Structure formats: structure tokens, C-alpha cells
């Protein structure tokens, strides 16, 4: 299994000289499993650049197959979709999975002509074949990859999923947006991620910042470390960096994370993990 980071940033894309190392694109991961179509976790602005990369292969010839798994539909998790060029090429096939029966209409809304000049490929007859599926807390397989989902506490009123992907004896988990307001919230996550090799976890807020933001959907970085240790994960990747966080600040945060009983990386756009 190979995992590549195309977007690591929370909330809003942050082009800036100070975000060149860890990246300014909103969240998106590419997961390649041998013998299985391309898997994509979330569709922030990183998806555009992943799409351009995929065009060099089958997707450029209208023979690509991709599966996009969405945790939820806050803009920073879907805003790359209108600019995912493989969608405009007939013959490609893209399945989008998300946590809400209203997902098809939500994705059409994003491409309404009042907001978006790109042809609305969620309407019939434009571009790739697109299928949208509601997968609220169900387990399923895509090729040889086993996908496990769980409902995660994010923001009140928002249905948000976490994902675990297993293939060929290796595993990753993906929790870009999560807050732990009670032990039950922690237990849901620990059940989902127990023992994974690699965990991508919400790291938007430091422990100093967290109290001011309590109840708004994001935990602290220390919460992420605590969960990773309790769930005995192999490596924690700090993910969903705050839009105001510079590369230097992220490096400082990472340095303070050592010695906690789990290996920690700071998510960096362009990094590829081979498991």
C-alpha cells in the first residue's frame, strides 16, 4: 500500500511562502493498493493536483477508475472536485462515497452555475461516469482493500466519518476532523483505528489554543497523541494544519511531540509512505 499526501491544510487553501514545506492545499490523500483502483480520501484543493498527476496514466485516456471517500462535506473537504480534471473526460469512472443521503444534491449545488463555471459533471451526459454512494457507518470492499467506517464526533449537526483501510496485511486510518468531548467519542475512534500502521489525525489546534475552541469540532494535538498511544498505532501523522500555521511553527510543534510513546510526523504535502 502506498499513501501520498496531496493536501494537508484545514479550512481554506493557504498559498504563502511560509507554507511551502508542509503545503497550503486543503486535505486530500491518494492511496494506491496493488490490484485495486485509485483510492482517494477527501477532496480538498489537493485533489486538483492529484487529478493532473493521474492524467499522465489511464485517466488521461478515459480509462481510469477512482473511488473518492469523503469524511463530510465542509468546503475544505470537497472544494477540489470541480477542478478534478479526470471528471471531464468521458470513459473515466469515479465513485464518490460520503456520509449523507443528500450527497448527490450537495455535490450538484457546489457546481451550480451561480458558483462554478465548470460544466456540472454531476448532471447526466457530461464527462466521466460518476456514481455517488451513501456509506454512513458501513463496511465494504473496493478491490482488495477493506474499508471500515465509523461515525466520528466533529461539529454538532454534521455527520462525519472516519476511515480505516486494510490491504495486504497493512492498514491506515484517516481522521482529519474530530473532537473528543466525552470518553464515548474516544472509544469509537480507538475501536476504528486500533493497531493501524499509519494514522492521519486532526492536528489543527495546540493544547494552548484548544480551550477557546472547545465544542467547535476539533481536538488538540495532545488528544491525537493520546488516542494514537491508546490505540497502539505504528505512526501518527499530524494532519489538517491550521491555516495560520507557518512551516516553522509546525516544525516546533512536531519537535515537542517526541518522547510520547508513538512515532510522530508532521503531514507534509508531497510525502509518500510505502507500507
Amino acid at each position, binding site marked *: 500500500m502506498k499513501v501520498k499526501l496531496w493536501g494537508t*491544510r484545514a*479550512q*481554506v*487553501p*493557504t*498559498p*504563502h*511562502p511560509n*507554507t*511551502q514545506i508542509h*503545503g*497550503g*492545499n486543503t486535505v486530500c490523500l491518494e492511496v494506491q493498493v496493488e490490484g485495486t483502483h485509485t483510492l482517494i480520501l477527501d477532496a480538498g*484543493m489537493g485533489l*486538483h*493536483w492529484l487529478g493532473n498527476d493521474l492524467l499522465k496514466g489511464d485517466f488521461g485516456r478515459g480509462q481510469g477508475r477512482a473511488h473518492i471517500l469523503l469524511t*463530510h*462535506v*465542509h*468546503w475544505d473537504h*470537497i*472544494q477540489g472536485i*470541480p*477542478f478534478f480534471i479526470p471528471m471531464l473526460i468521458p470513459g473515466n469512472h469515479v465513485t464518490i462515497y460520503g456520509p*449523507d443521503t443528500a450527497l448527490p444534491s*450537495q455535490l450538484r*449545488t*457546489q457546481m451550480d*452555475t*451561480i*458558483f*462554478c*463555471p465548470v460544466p456540472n459533471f454531476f448532471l447526466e451526459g457530461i464527462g466521466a461516469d460518476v456514481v455517488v454512494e451513501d456509506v454512513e457507518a458501513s463496511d465494504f470492499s473496493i478491490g482488495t482493500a477493506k474499508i471500515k467506517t465509523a461515525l466520528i464526533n466533529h*461539529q454538532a*449537526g*454534521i*455527520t462525519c466519518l472516519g476511515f480505516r483501510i486494510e490491504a495486504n496485511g497493512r492498514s491506515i486510518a484517516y481522521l482529519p476532523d474530530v473532537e473528543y468531548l466525552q470518553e464515548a467519542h474516544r472509544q469509537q475512534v480507538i475501536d476504528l483505528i486500533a493497531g493501524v500502521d499509519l494514522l492521519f489525525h486532526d492536528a489543527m489546534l495546540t493544547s494552548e489554543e484548544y480551550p477557546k475552541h472547545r465544542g*467547535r*469540532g476539533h481536538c488538540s494535538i495532545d488528544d491525537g497523541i493520546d488516542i494514537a498511544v491508546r490505540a497502539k498505532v505504528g505512526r501518527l501523522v499530524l494532519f489538517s494544519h491550521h*491555516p495560520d500555521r507557518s512551516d516553522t511553527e509546525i516544525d516546533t510543534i512536531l519537535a515537542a511531540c517526541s518522547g510520547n510513546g508513538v512515532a510522530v510526523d508532521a503531514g507534509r*504535502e508531497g510525502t509518500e509512505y510505502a507500507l
Partner: protein
Amino acid sequence: MQITFRGVRGSYPVAAPHSVRYGGNTPCLEVSAGETCLIIDAGTGICSLGKDLVERDQLEIHLLIGHTHWDHIQGFPHFAPQYNKNAHIRIYSLAHEDRSLGDIFRAQQQAPFSPIPLADAEAQIEFIELQDGEPITIGEAQITCHRLNHPSVTGGYRIEHQGKVLSYVSDVDLYGPILLGDGMKNGSPEQQRAWHRHLQKGALDLAHRADLMVCDTFFLPEEYKPDWGHSRPGDALRLGEEAQIERLALFHHEPHRSDDEIDAIQARYRKEAPFDLFASVEGLELAL
């Protein structure tokens, strides 16, 4: 009049190594007309501006929106004055026939897409719909909005203050053969000719003797697509000459255009232009 370029990139924000010098934030201009704080467009460039305005306690804000495609409004949910109870934000744009400007902004900022609905903003927010070609006064500035040839309902702005003129002509296909805006497309041939004349006169009125014209130059000649609603540097030069402008800012850079390519475009068209010309760069401040 003081102008600061906060976002100069078209279509979507570009956080990539090729665009570090010119900048990857989507359109936003900060314009100070004396004590009047004007902002043109709310692309991601508005995020850093919002923090500065709160710091400066400059909270009487007039936001002029050219049109409501994502790259021109996507920064607004992250605009700090929205979450300040002392702020008063007035948002202006051309009226749509079937949807109010407030509805469009509320649709962007609502569950499940946005964590904080617009209704929960602490600032006082007002929406003001403009009519094509009708002049208005905002604080110390005289402003006119003219319809442009671009999909949906798009307007450009002419801002006059103490005898100086800033002209914002984006997004637009200035001399294109196809009518692209809502309500333009299905008329008789005579109605369509009338629209073309009306749009070209509107662009000319926006630009007339401007001290600075900020103009959409998304395409290079060899890339031009007549159904997208964007112009080439040559189109901006033609309008600038007809309107006798002083200075041209190439704007709304194509997302994949690298810093070196923009340098080359600037050098090439500087030789052809009978007036001063530069490529818009994020962070640039200038005074008219």
C-alpha cells in the same frame, strides 16, 4: 487612493512552488479612498486582509463583488471582521434576476458546507444590489458597475476619488464572439448585436482615462477559448488604448502559470503597450 493587491490568481487558489512570487490567492483588492475602506472581491486574498482590518480597527467595510463564482467569494467565510460585533460590512454586486445576493452568500455559508452559518455572524452585514451602469456614492468614492461578458452575472467597477480613477475589469472576454452572461444568450440576432455593443461600451466606460486598469488576462493568445469568458493581454491592450488609460495591471493569472512565465508575459507586452504595464503581484501596494 491606495491599492493593495491581496489576491491575483484566477479560478482557484494555487498553493504550489511555481507561484510563490506572484502569489496563489484568488482575487481580492484592498482600496482606500481617503477614509473609506473598499474591497473588491472576496477570493482567498481577503483572509489576510480581514485580520489586518481587525488589527487596525478598520471595521466600516464596503465589499464590491464582481460576480459570485467560487474564486471571488470563497474567502468570505474566513474574513475575520465577520466575527467582530463592531464590524459593519456592506456587500455590493449586480442584481441577479432569480436570486438575491444575500441568498447566494447564505448558500455558501450554511450547514453542512460551512461550520459557521452566515446568520451567526457577529458583524452587521447588509446586501446592496446594483444596477448596470448606475453610479453610486460610497463614502468618499464615486463608483459605477458595468456588466461584463462572462458566465452568470458579472460586473466590473470604476472607482473615482479626488480625480483619480481605478478600473477593475475582471472576469471578462472583452472582444469575444459569444455572449456568455445570464439573459444575454437567447435573443434575436439584433438583440445579440445590441448586447455586444452594450458590453463593449460598458467596458470602455469603466476604463475611460483610468489611472490604473486592473484587467483579466487569463489566456495567452494560443490558449484562448471563446466560451470561457476570459481575455488575453492583447485584448487588455486594445481596451487600454481605446480608453486612453495611464497604466495596466495584468490580473487573474491562470492557475498553472509559473512565476517565470508571468515575468516573460510582462516583458513581452511591455514592449507592445503604449502605456505603463505590470503583472499583478500579491502584496503590491501603490498609490494613485
